[in-house]
């Protein structure tokens, strides 16, 4: 439970089983007992859900309610502490112990004794508690309730009604936490049962939490069912690599293979929740295309080779190329240690500032913003989860929390429900997520965010937090305006990227303008400090090429070799240009799977996935989140080791070989401070060039989509939201479209096709499509939000209306 740190609640002293304990006013007896070291069994109670008092397992005696008078038996989960109260739990009260044993027997009346085939067995609170009960054999010899089972609730969740004990944790999770209607209690009396909401749909993005919350085996995960027994599992606490939220998780491994992920428990970040992307998104590294050995291009074909052969080949290709002749594209999914290794590899081994981790749509405005406002953030500027709850108002700019940072969404929703937080969404329509936040729409066509921020005026005050998503890079002027209005008003600003490695890459210096630690490559003093620290004689002095610049320079023959980390070409704004660049250059690829980049690579090194290595993620709050190897696979080392080995093969020295040493090297830089004055001021980017079109494109990634890390998570993919084209009634009508009709959206000769979903309240003249959807079904649109596109009915040829397009 989060408590306002500014208020210190009154302390209440009571006695539980003779142990005196002082707790905050409003605490329940059950929680107070935990603080006194007394565990009272419970099923419906959960610290993050409102008390219900349904299962009655936690009943205790209260000989003195604090007023000298006893109470009848009480459920300790609903009873608030009182000064001087005396409580006797099952440990000291025979009545309480008998009562709890009696309730346990009743709980088992209708609970099937199918533990041998139940997934929950071995980690089941009901089973555990039943084993502690004095009555080991049930006296119930009658007819148990039976139900059809199992029933799929969503593609990821199965319901076994017979096992349900009516604790209503799942229904309360739906109502209080996620806001997704999923479960409902129907009927009454003995017929009371959990049912699936008629409007459950695919269940939203948080359904997996209901499985984890279930204190029996009534809800199980279709992905994990019958996969393992708890005693077969080796569990590791780590940090989720699904997004930049920094959620703590537990990774369960059986026979050298990850079989399950569960939410960890970290009140500063994810509480005990996890989104389904994080929960189920661990299968991609188990795919058949997983790289285990280095590959070398021989006569146009990639063949498996030994590490020394691959290292020799990489060194041979890179040798002699420095400065503007080489480039490094580390990608946005790296740990701090790996990102730092790429940065130091670029700066000291290849002597180049041609490094850009982004591999996604970006702008020069963003480069400057990241350098000045993110790389060099001071603690006072930081926003964390707790700050979201303290705020009176949160403004969402180019940011859909539920889709792009689900844990931020849950935290905002809690603040909305608990403390009346007001959410304003600067967006083209009020998304489902925003509706669940009770957000007010500041209607805005993509590209006009900067003007909308200005128009908000004094609404943005010192109690406001601006949450800006990475899509702001495509909204000219938005980042600059966000900085300006927050500086002027005293509001706080947080930039929330999607990918887990973004912040680490920024602070490690994986941008063409930056050295590690938020200092400019053009800052001679900074370079001198680093040369001393790194024991190198030389560092490149001029700003390097950014992602687009690298592609252009490669095509122009200037850049002749590229070293890439995990890069998904589908995320690039101009993938075609990059493909040509990779085609023309010597490419060294450090990859987990046989991705599209691998097809262009000359040398490929297999690297460890995030659950196979130790390290550190830096989340959007700029806090370090530990990554611990759940698996150790010697064949696939972390990027750090590969880069160190390539350096060695080049006759150079990266300065470290291990993750731990990389972190130590990075931390040694912390005695220097960023110098913002040396970094270029933020200037608004130019709006996109005007092209013919009858609509403006709005687009963002959906949490569950065609993302590579979700490969293999088949059940989750089945639960993905449908890919639709959203537009207002007027926009649809103007094009002769209606709800459900198939729309075609075209730009620059590329296409996206899918059904129309008329969206009330949406800005006219705007069409929204998901950024990444199944290409085979929908095609792929090469256009950025804010650009003009052609919106038509399916079947209408656009050959004549599109510049250079033939509709293919």
């Amino acid at each position, binding site marked *: 439970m989060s408590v306002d740190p500014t208020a210190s609640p009154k302390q209440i002293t009571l006695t539980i089983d003779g142990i005196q304990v002082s707790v905050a006013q409003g605490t329940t007896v059950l929680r107070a007992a935990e603080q006194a070291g007394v565990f009272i069994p419970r099923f419906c109670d959960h610290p993050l859900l409102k008390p219900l008092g349904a299962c009655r397992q936690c009943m205790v005696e209260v000989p003195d309610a604090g007023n000298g008078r006893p109470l009848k038996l009480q459920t300790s989960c609903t009873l608030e502490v009182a000064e001087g109260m005396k409580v006797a739990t099952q440990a000291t009260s025979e009545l309480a112990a008998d009562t709890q044993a009696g309730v346990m027997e009743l709980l088992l009346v209708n609970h099937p004794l199918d533990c041998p085939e139940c997934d929950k067995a071995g980690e089941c609170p009901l089973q555990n508690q039943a084993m502690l009960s004095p009555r080991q054999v049930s006296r119930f010899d009658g007819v148990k309730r039976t139900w059809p089972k199992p029933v799929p609730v969503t593609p990821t969740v199965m319901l076994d009604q017979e096992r349900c004990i009516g604790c209503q944790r799942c229904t309360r999770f739906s109502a209080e936490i996620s806001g997704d209607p999923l479960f409902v209690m129907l009927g009454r009396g003995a017929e009371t049962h959990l049912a699936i909401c*008629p409007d*459950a749909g695919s269940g939203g993005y948080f359904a997996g939490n209901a499985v984890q919350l279930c204190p029996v085996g009534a809800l199980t995960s279709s992905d994990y069912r019958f996969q393992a027994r708890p005693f077969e599992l080796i569990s590791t606490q780590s940090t989720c690599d699904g997004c930049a939220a920094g959620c703590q998780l537990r990774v369960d491994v059986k026979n050298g293979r990850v079989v399950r992920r569960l939410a960890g428990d970290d009140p500063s970040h994810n509480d005990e929740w996890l989104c389904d992307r994080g929960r189920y998104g661990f299968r991609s590294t188990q795919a058949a295309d997983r790289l285990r050995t280095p590959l070398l291009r021989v006569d146009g074909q990639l063949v498996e080779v030994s590490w020394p052969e691959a290292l020799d080949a990489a060194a041979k290709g890179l040798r002699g190329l420095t400065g503007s002749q080489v480039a490094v594209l580390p990608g946005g999914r790296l740990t701090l240690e790996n990102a730092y290794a790429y940065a130091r590899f670029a700066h000291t081994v290849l002597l180049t500032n041609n490094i850009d981790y982004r591999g996604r749509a970006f702008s020069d405005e963003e480069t400057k913003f990241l350098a000045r406002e993110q790389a060099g953030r001071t603690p006072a500027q930081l926003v964390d989860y707790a700050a979201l709850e303290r705020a009176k108002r949160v403004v969402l700019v180019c940011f859909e929390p539920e889709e792009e940072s689900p844990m931020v969404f849950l935290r905002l929703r809690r603040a909305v429900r608990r403390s009346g937080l007001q959410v304003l969404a600067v967006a083209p329509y009020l998304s489902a997520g925003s509706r669940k936040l009770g957000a007010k729409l500041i209607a805005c066509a993509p590209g006009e965010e900067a003007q909308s921020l200005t128009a908000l005026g004094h609404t943005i005050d010192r109690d406001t937090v601006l949450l800006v998503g990475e899509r702001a890079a495509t909204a000219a002027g938005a980042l600059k305006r966000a900085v300006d209005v927050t500086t002027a008003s005293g509001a706080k600003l947080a930039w929330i990227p999607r990918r887990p490695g973004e912040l680490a890459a920024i602070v490690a210096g994986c941008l063409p303008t930056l050295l590690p630690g938020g200092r400019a490559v053009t800052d001679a003093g900074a370079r001198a400090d680093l040369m001393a620290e790194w024991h190198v004689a030389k560092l490149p002095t001029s700003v390097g090429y950014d992602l687009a610049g690298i592609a252009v320079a490669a095509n122009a023959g200037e850049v002749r070799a590229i070293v890439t980390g995990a890069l998904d070409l589908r995320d690039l704004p101009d993938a075609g240009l990059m493909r040509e660049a990779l085609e023309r250059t010597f490419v060294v690829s450090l990859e987990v799977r046989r991705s599209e980049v691998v097809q262009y690579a000359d040398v490929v090194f297999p690297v460890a996935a995030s659950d196979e290595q130790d390290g550190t993620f830096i989340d959007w709050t700029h806090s370090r989140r530990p990554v611990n190897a759940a698996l150790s696979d010697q064949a696939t080392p972390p990027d750090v080791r590969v880069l160190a080995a390539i350096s060695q093969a080049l006759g150079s020295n990266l300065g470290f070989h291990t993750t731990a040493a990389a972190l130590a090297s990075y931390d040694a830089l912390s005695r220097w401070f960023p110098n913002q004055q040396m970094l270029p001021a933020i200037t608004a980017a130019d709006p996109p060039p005007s092209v013919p079109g009858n609509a403006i494109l709005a687009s963002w990634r959906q949490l569950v989509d065609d993302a590579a890390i979700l490969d293999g998570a088949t059940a989750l993919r089945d639960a993905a939201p449908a890919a639709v084209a959203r537009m207002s009634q007027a926009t649809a009508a103007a094009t002769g479209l209606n709800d459900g009709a198939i729309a075609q959206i075209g730009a620059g000769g590329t296409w996206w096709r899918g059904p129309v979903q008329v969206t009330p309240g949406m800005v006219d003249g705007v069409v929204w499509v998901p950024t990444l959807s199944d290409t085979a079904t929908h095609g792929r649109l090469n256009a950025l939000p804010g650009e003009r596109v052609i919106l038509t009915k399916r079947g209408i040829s656009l050959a004549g209306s599109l510049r250079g397009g033939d509709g293919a």
Partner: protein
Amino acid sequence: MTDEPSRITEATVVELRELMGRYPQARSALIPMLHLVQSVDGCVSDTGVQLCADLLGISANEVLGVATFYTMFKRRPAGQHHIGICRTALCAVLGGDLIWDEVREKLGLEDGETTPDGKFSLEGIQCNAACDFAPVMTVDWEFMDNMTPERAAAIIDYLSANQPVRATRGPILAGFRASERVLAGFPDGKADEGPGAGEASVRGTRIAAINRWVAPLGVPIPGVTERSAGDA
């Protein structure tokens, strides 16, 4: 759940909104609204569930949670006439079980079923607060007091033949849907039909009158005209 298409119209929506307006908070109207849905569709239809949810701004599952909690709400259409037979201890012992068997056999229905022609539905009901008229049957939630198997059979025969049947304490039976409309809060103007109270209800009153037993008069209170109720 429902197979038949809903008969809910715009006029129903207007009336649902009227019900919402009768309460300080619109959701309080949900039970009356579901009664109204039943008066139109004969059951809480899926259309009705969604409509109530939309009008109240709550989710359909919340509406369903409510609809399945209360026994009067049916998820399959009730018959034109809905027969209830009390199965709680007192009525059952006094002969309700025999009536139950008679009616069940005659209609060929089990608890909760509706005849294929949609004429009758049967429900074993719990105590209906008419124990002094036991065994109790209800038709369309009107009292059919002091029931016997023979009378129950006769009532069914009359209703089958579309002959008028009067409730023992109430009007001529007008069907399940008509009663549901009254329950929703739209009176049908039949309040004055039937006796003030049944024979059993006035037993004590009559014994007192015969014996001239009255409650004592009070000490006269200034400003209040004292008249014994019994003088009326």
